[in-house]
């Protein structure tokens, strides 16, 4: 009986240790994965923003005029 109880206790301890180990290892894995995931999100966000900005720039370039009168001047700076 004692042996049985001892075996169950050891088994429980082993399971507990396994669970704890698993839990600890899982945290590490989660952290790592989480960090990677964040990076991915940032990349996605950056990419998204870049694409979005690129879209706006393209849109402005297509729609905005720019004036340059094309005349050369001799310059006097205002120090009056």
């Amino acid at each position, binding site marked *: 009986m004692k042996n049985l109880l001892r075996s169950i206790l050891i088994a429980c301890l082993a399971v507990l240790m396994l669970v704890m180990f698993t839990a600890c290892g899982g945290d590490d894995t989660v952290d790592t994965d989480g960090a990677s995931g964040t990076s991915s999100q940032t990349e996605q966000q950056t990419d998204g923003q870049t694409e979005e900005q690129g879209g706006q720039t393209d849109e*402005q370039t297509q*729609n*905005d*005029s*720019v*004036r*340059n*009168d094309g*005349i*050369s*001047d*001799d*310059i*006097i*700076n*205002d*120090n*009056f």
Partner: protein
Amino acid sequence: MKKKILSMLLACLMVMSMLAVTLSAADSDVCSVTKKDGTVVGTYAKYEDALKAAYEAGGGTITFVADYTLAGATNVNTDAATVTDITINGGGHTLECGSITPFNFAANDNVTVNDLKVNTTGARFTDIYAGSTITFNKVTFTSNAHIDDQYGYFRTPNTNSANDKVNTLNFKDCTITLTGKGTVIGIRNGAHILDVNMEGTTVIGSTQGNMPGFIYGGRNATLKDTDVAVSGRVFWGMKGGTIRVDGNSTLKTTSGSRAIFDIAGSYNVYLGDNTKIVGKVLNTVGGAAEYLNIYATNPDFFYTDDTTQNTSFPAPVMNDGATLRVSDDEPNYGLRFTSTCAPTADTETVKGVKYGTVITKDTYLDKALWAEAVTGNAKDGDKEIFKSVWADKGLTKAADGTVTMNTALANIKEENYKSTFYARSFAEYSLDSLDFVKVYVFSELDTAKHGASYSETVNKDLSENVKDASADGYTTVVDSYVTYANNAYAWQSGTKYTCYSSKQYADLKAIATK
């Protein structure tokens, strides 16, 4: 019987009273003298005695109460060390001088002569020693004396000891008429400096023979609203300095003169907006000239005779107002003044043509230092108030030789957005082989047409560069625009299309609405 005696007595009384008046006039004094503090010194029958008394009193005022004919020398003071202030009030009387020089002053005297008629027949008007300042107000000079030397009717200084003291001759509202022979104003010793200032004065010279006509050896002269017409070897025999002629002034050489300027030194000549030179400008037989710069802010300054304008070089012409500079190159924005200049037909004489433009601000316009700006000397204290730039990148030349100049005032300070700026372009050229001579001819200045403000120019430009609907080159959508009505620009809300980028429009709107 009683009546007979009474009538004879009355007749005798009348004769005696007339005799008394006659005697009184004969004995009357010519001048009174008062000290500087107003104390009466005395009255004198001779001007030369009054002058001596004024000197002995340490200076004062001599007042003429009658016409007078000089009887003795006037060099009554030889104390060169003492500064003496003398005022001579002529009261419209006449001083007949014959062959005696009337104004013969020692060094360091300050003398003012007012409202007097001075005639000589064989003498100069002045002999003035170094360091003196002599001012003539409303004095009429006439002389038929044959001076026959270059030291002049107004000789200064009469000494051979060289020093650096300035001698100054001022004439205001005077008339000088000479029918004899000799230079009008001369400096006897070349080591001295003579400043001559004339305002509202007329000088009519006679035939001066082989002598300089107007001034010999003068260093600096300022003439305003003054006409000078003389003959002689040259008009102005110079030794270096500055000549400034302004107001309604005319310098004229009569027949027989070689030229206006005959130089042996370095001279800057500034001719104002309403000045005119009649005759040949330069004597090509001149001495060891270093340079002669003639700055003419009146483009029509030079006449070959009374009515024929010399057109050897056309003046630049400014466009009205200014336009907005908008460029990819920095500075991106500015106030652009544009001018054109036709080519000269006188390609034989005119050499080395260069162009430039001067800009100033409304608050400095009255200073009129356009010509000085060319050499960077248009200053108020240390501040440059007229600024010049040579035409280079902004210059284009058409096939017919016409030059267009674009000059922009850039980096305009916010405090100057609403100031009015004015511009004048100029052309610089040399005369034939006389490479020491440079003439600067400026465009006309019409303040009603040639000024522009940055704020107004930007508003005008923006008001003209929006459309109600998108069009070719007008695709930038803006939510406000400016309109012009009742002599004012007003900004409105509403959708418009402009040829500017959003950034340009925002930049310019900030200027326009400041």
